[in-house]
């Protein structure tokens, strides 16, 4: 066993494991460090593994071999008030054709499987290892210190894929302190429910899955709820901005409990048995909150690099993570060929990210992070929308207005004209 490694990857999540697979296939000595007992033991997400071209390229038969739950067939966006729900549901036969647009997965199962693929290709996986600090020599990162199995690991290049709270990126001087305005916390309750009941309640057949996003049931806290169907369970939870959570002074699980008590949600999860509760941070600051991506001897990938964005409609991270892991690996291969691990050589990583969909999407929605800080989006507007819908449908002998007049009247009851225009411009800049 080599004592000195070509590349040390910290974190056997989707970014780290795919980087390890790429490097091992190129015949390099790779060490993959994981702080959990097994890959995925510390990882949690809402539930959706998005379609990711690099995953399809590197493991074309993954749909047959990976532990997947359901492919997502149905997308729903629901605006909620305490007594109503206005939802837009999209079901599409084109989402029935492989490559599927996404799968629900369990992270301990999926991440363990993915890391196992890297191991089969020759990477060395070492679990129970918390990388604590970086080792520098002549200004260049040359290794990490490990807590758990005490010791030092050295290599030519370090890829930090150590998650949303990347202490390694911080210790390498690549980022500032973590800010509550750039972070969300996701909490999730996994609820067991039998397969036939799930299919019936969500109108699904075979291994079709549903992905439902909810806006408006976070008690005024900026954030949203989610529900994903797995084969024999549903993942229900919410994501809230930390600064808004702090200001509200509420416990996140209390907000979740209120959400679970909503009449619409209660019907969906009736009789379900709680199986597991989890929480994780999400880097939601978008493009402007990203750290520097490389320095001498080190690159940062996945959540650690802040590669995640949400615009209220799309919430992507795992696909950006896997792609960034592969791009970091490709850069490492070039650097090792050249025998040069300087920041100048590793800047190729940034160039590759810039040329890929990753940075293009991060830039396209760079104003979305700001839009997601509009307080009114999370309670007032869902309320306005529900009032319009109610007036539209209610039959009570009161003379009707045409739609635009009705919408204007309902909106102005809750929001001033000036605020409406300001919000409209911000939403427009972010999405249109």
């Amino acid at each position, binding site marked *: 066993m080599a004592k000195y490694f070509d590349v040390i990857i910290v974190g056997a999540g989707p970014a780290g494991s795919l980087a390890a697979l790429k490097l091992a296939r190129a015949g390099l000595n790779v060490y993959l460090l994981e702080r959990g007992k097994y890959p995925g033991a510390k990882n949690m997400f809402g539930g959706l593994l998005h379609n990711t071209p690099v995953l399809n390229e590197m493991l074309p038969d993954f749909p047959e071999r990976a532990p997947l739950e359901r492919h997502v067939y149905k997308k729903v966006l629901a605006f909620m008030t305490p007594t109503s729900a206005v939802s837009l549901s999209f079901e599409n036969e084109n989402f029935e054709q492989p490559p599927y647009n996404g799968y629900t997965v369990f992270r301990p199962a999926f991440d363990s499987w993915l890391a196992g693929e890297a191991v089969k290709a020759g990477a060395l996986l070492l*679990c129970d290892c918390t990388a604590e600090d970086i080792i520098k020599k002549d200004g260049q990162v040359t290794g990490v210190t490990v807590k758990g199995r005490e010791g030092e690991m050295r290599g030519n290049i370090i890829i930090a894929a150590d998650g949303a709270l990347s202490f390694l990126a911080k210790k390498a001087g690549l980022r500032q302190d973590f800010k509550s305005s750039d972070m969300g916390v996701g909490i999730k309750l996994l609820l067991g429910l039998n397969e036939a009941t799930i299919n019936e309640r969500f109108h699904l057949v075979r291994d079709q899955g549903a992905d439902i996003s909810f806006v408006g049931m976070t008690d005024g806290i900026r954030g949203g709820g989610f529900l994903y169907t797995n084969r024999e369970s549903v993942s229900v939870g919410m994501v809230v901005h930390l600064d808004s959570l702090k200001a509200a002074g509420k416990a996140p699980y209390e907000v979740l409990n209120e959400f679970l008590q909503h009449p619409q949600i209660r019907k969906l999860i009736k009789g379900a048995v709680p199986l597991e509760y989890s929480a994780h941070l999400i880097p939601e600051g978008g493009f402007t909150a990203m750290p520097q991506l490389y320095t001498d001897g080190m690159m940062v990938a996945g959540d650690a690099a802040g590669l995640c964005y949400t615009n209220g409609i799309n919430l992507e991270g795992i696909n950006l993570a896997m792609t960034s892991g592969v791009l970091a690996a490709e850069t490492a291969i070039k650097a090792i060929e050249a025998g040069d691990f300087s920041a100048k050589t590793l800047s190729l990583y940034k160039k590759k990210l810039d040329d890929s969909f990753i940075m293009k999407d991060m830039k396209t929605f760079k104003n979305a992070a700001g839009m997601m800080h509009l307080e009114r989006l999370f309670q007032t507007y869902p309320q306005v929308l529900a009032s319009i819908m109610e007036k539209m449908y209610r039959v009570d002998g009161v003379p009707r207005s045409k739609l635009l007049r009705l919408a204007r009247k309902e909106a102005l009851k809750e929001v001033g004209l000036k605020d409406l225009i300001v919000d409209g411009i911000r939403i427009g800049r972010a999405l249109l």
Partner: protein
Amino acid sequence: MNIEDLQQLTQFQVDEQPHIIVNKEICKSCDHHACVKACPANCYTFNEETKLLSVVYETCLECGTCYVICDKGALDWSYPRGGYGVCYRLT
């Protein structure tokens, strides 16, 4: 969901070494104790009589919410030693 059931729901490999240490002096004079409410695992308690903040690190989900929202620098927060801490089975 009852947060009191956390230990029945989620698995933990408890280390005898705590990975969160609170600076009780700083916390005494803190004006918000936001960590107490914001922690998704209800790990923090503030005793109004003794003015002491205490943390139950054993059921920490390692999300880092407390660390990020603490604006007093009162938390010495790190990930647990390798192999210890929360251990998700399904999520």
